[in-house]
């Protein structure tokens, strides 16, 4: 394994640059170092102006997502040694694809957060039961139906992997759709009908062409592509049922 490796980092300063350029920094390859450690090394020792987001450094907060050698990755979980062992001398670090860039490796997330809010990712009750009734109980099987989709940390790697997000800016996108499905599948939720207007729409699940990259890059194994296809099927079934039953049924 090489002792040193070069980080080729995309730099963009909104005050000076028309478009990003790359700067190279040589960093030591320690066995336990991840790309985020190398970025911190550069910021602490070489160039304090290097700008990027990070917080927990343990795959929970979802803030350190970046393109590493063209792949959306959580930099806190991407080891330098992985690349060094493959004989790479250079690792390219760029901001997550398809997002506007604020500075260096920092992307603008307002659009994503607005989309997230639009799918109403919270428990909706039509009839709020009294507190005296106690907590909502669920069986392990009921939890199992949505648990996988509840693991999302909003790191937006799936947005950087999805070409539809890049080509169609109004597309709600993988994480928000998977989260909507997470609440639709929750036995405590009654908001599926409210979410249908946005989900069963060309901007919603019908915008998805099932590239499947969102699922491949997801660091928490959420499988947004699966959630979206399942919703498509549920929406079609609900539409068919509406012919048979006078009031139809909620897409679940």
């Amino acid at each position, binding site marked *: 394994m090489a002792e040193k490796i070069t980080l080729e980092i995309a730099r963009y300063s*909104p005050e000076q640059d028309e*478009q990003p350029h790359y700067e190279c920094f040589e960093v030591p390859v320690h066995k336990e170092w991840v790309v985020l450690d190398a970025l911190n090394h550069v910021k602490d020792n070489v160039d304090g102006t290097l700008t990027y987001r990070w917080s927990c450094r343990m795959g929970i907060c979802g803030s350190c997502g970046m393109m590493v050698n063209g792949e959306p990755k959580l930099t806190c979980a991407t080891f330098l040694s992985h690349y060094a062992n493959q004989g790479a001398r250079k690792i390219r670090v760029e901001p997550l694809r398809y997002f*506007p*860039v*604020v500075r260096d490796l920092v992307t603008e997330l307002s659009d994503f957060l607005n989309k997230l809010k639009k799918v109403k990712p919270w428990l909706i009750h039509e009839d709020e039961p009294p507190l005296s009734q106690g907590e909502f109980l669920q069986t392990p099987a009921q939890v199992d139906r949505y648990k996988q989709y509840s693991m999302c940390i909003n790191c937006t790697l799936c947005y950087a992997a999805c070409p539809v997000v*890049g080509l169609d800016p109004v597309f709600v996108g993988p994480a928000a759709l998977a989260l909507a499905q997470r609440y639709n599948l929750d036995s405590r939720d009654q908001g599926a009908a409210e979410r249908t207007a946005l989900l069963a729409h060309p901007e919603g699940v019908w915008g998805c062409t099932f590239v499947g*990259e969102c699922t491949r890059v997801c660091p928490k194994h959420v*499988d947004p592509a699966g959630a979206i*296809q399942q919703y498509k099927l549920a929406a079609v079934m609900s539409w068919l049922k509406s012919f048979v039953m006078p009031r139809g049924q909620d897409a679940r």
Partner: protein
Amino acid sequence: MSTSTLQPPKKPSGYKPFHPRWYRPRVSVYWWLGEWHYLKFILREISSVFVAWFVVETLLLVNALRQGPAAYEHYLKLMQNPLILVLNVVSLFFVVFHTITWFNLAPSAMPVRFGGKRVPDFLVAAPSYIAWIVVSVGVAWLLLR
């Protein structure tokens, strides 16, 4: 502090909240060429054109059979054209690719639950493959017996 400061401050004309100039990357029309995963997706989508071609070919065959022996002979001659042969070989490759990719994607669109647990994906895809093999062997037996 003068009393005038209690009044709401006047908005200076031309005031704009700070908004850094974002860099908005453009998506190239060749976005699908750069990565194997994207190229595979595009090939999978294009494969539907070749599936459609086989459907057209089958409809032409049925039509020729309906019109009689002369039309059927003409159809067979058309199918012996080298260009059609090459197109059919390419189409066969794409139709097989289409079938395999869709069989593999089916379990994520239709998860099957049994006894409260999700059945492994390969078990959900297996019946499709088995049905494919059975039908293919049946057709081969009909043609080659």
